[in-house]
């Protein structure tokens, strides 16, 4: 089964790798592969963090653009939002 990896899983695996390394459970034979894997995981996590940050920043920026007090006037096209907002 192929599924996209989660950040949490990647981080967990990374932690495992580090603790194996710390406890000297990794032999020289495995070392290069393990470090490669760790690098892959780190890169993946960084990517994920970056994309999340971009997304979050965009959302937050949009939010920040709405006036602080509603009384200062909301953009017109948002009038429909609250009525669209259903659960």
């Amino acid at each position, binding site marked *: 089964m192929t599924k996209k990896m989660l*950040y949490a899983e990647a*981080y967990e695996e*990374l*932690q495992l*790798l*580090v603790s194996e*390394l*710390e406890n*000297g459970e*990794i032999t*020289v034979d495995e*070392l290069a592969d393990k*470090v490669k894997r*760790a*690098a892959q995981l*780190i890169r993946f*996590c*960084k990517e994920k*963090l970056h994309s*999340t*940050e971009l997304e*979050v920043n965009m959302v*937050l920026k949009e*939010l*920040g653009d709405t006036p*602080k*007090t*509603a009384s200062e006037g909301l953009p017109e096209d948002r009038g429909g939002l609250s009525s669209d907002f259903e659960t």
Partner: protein
Amino acid sequence: MSEIINGNPVFSLKEVAESIKRTLQTRYTSAFWVRAEMNRLNFYRLSGHCYPDLVQKSEGSVIAQMRAVMWSSDYQRINRNFVQTTGEPLREGITMLFQASIQFDANHGLSLQIHDIDPVYALGELEREKLETIQKLKVERLFGLNAQKSLPLLVKRLAIVSVSTSKGLADFEQVLRESKSGYQVDLMLFPSLLQGEKAALQIERQLECIASVAHHFDAVAIIRGGGSDVGLTAFNDFRLASAICRFPLPVLTGIGHATNLTVVEMVAHTHAITPTKLAEIILQRFEIVDVGLDRAAKILTKSLQQIRLEQHRLETVSLNMKGLTLSEIMLNRNRIMDKMLEIRFISRQHMHHENNRLGQMQTNLESKSGYQIWQTASLLSQKENDFFKQIPAFLVQKFVDIDHVERLIELSRPEKILKRGFSIVYHNGRALTDVDQLHQGDTLDIRLAEGRVVASATEIYETNQE
């Protein structure tokens, strides 16, 4: 004076009456105090005199009865004093303390002439009577009943029991009318006398009338102007009081007076000491509501504050979320960075360690193999020494042994023995060792170290013969 008829003295009625009068006058020389109930006042407007009926009752029945007289001048004085003290004129039905003297008149018979009445005692009696009324109301569970009626928040429709000409009523209406806020209170007058003997009954009638249209009204007000404290008797009337107790609407009173509360006031829903005061009380209720409404209107604007507060909270939550989100990302980024540094450090350390171990191994290998060779070599040379060291000793020992043997052999040589003086005796070519086979005269060949001697045996001795 008296005639004799049939032998008996006979007196004329007048004589008898005068005799009685004389007797009484000599017997009752001064006035005295009497306690009695004034059953009837019997005031004659024309003469101004009163002829009260006095009675004494016991357990409901009359046990003594006497007529009395109060002359106009006495009545005026007495009544003035009475009103002054008790707040009401002389009236019937209460027990009083009279100062009286006995009068006898041929025409009118016996009567007590009242000179004075103790108003203080009457006051006590009145009070007692009032208490009895209250007691009775309580016994009948009427007292306080009207107070339990709920008075509408706004008394807008008011039935008034008063006299149309009453100053008190005018004051009452004026206060209501002149209220600055322009509150509207609708009044409807049900006129009635408020003092005098008929007052209680009239008031009661009007109350009945109001009760029949009670749904039009919020309350009833009994209004009586101030000034005179006289004539409040009606307001202690039991029937009126009980009617008020039972009245379907709240009964308000504005009865101006200075003395103690009347029973009617006690049982009314609300009482004010003057009509003006009552009007103020009613207006006050309006005021309270009005202020309440203004306050409510003001508080409604508080809802805007709530919205502001809510907006503020929202803003705070929003900022919080923003901060937390970014710090979460930062935290994770730092974690990842830490992991990276850790991996770098640990893997380098690991390799360094491994390298050191290998170096150690190499050093060990060098020193151990060198030592092994050195040790083997030294063992070998030890053995070599051990071996070759023994060889000379071995050989020397052998030489010594041989020398020893040689020396022994050398000592055994015959030549060496002969040289020391020994000699060998031969007989028949054999060396002799005993004299057994020797005979006297045998030839002996004696060999010395140097030379030989030939001899013959001359004497032979055995060994033990010597």
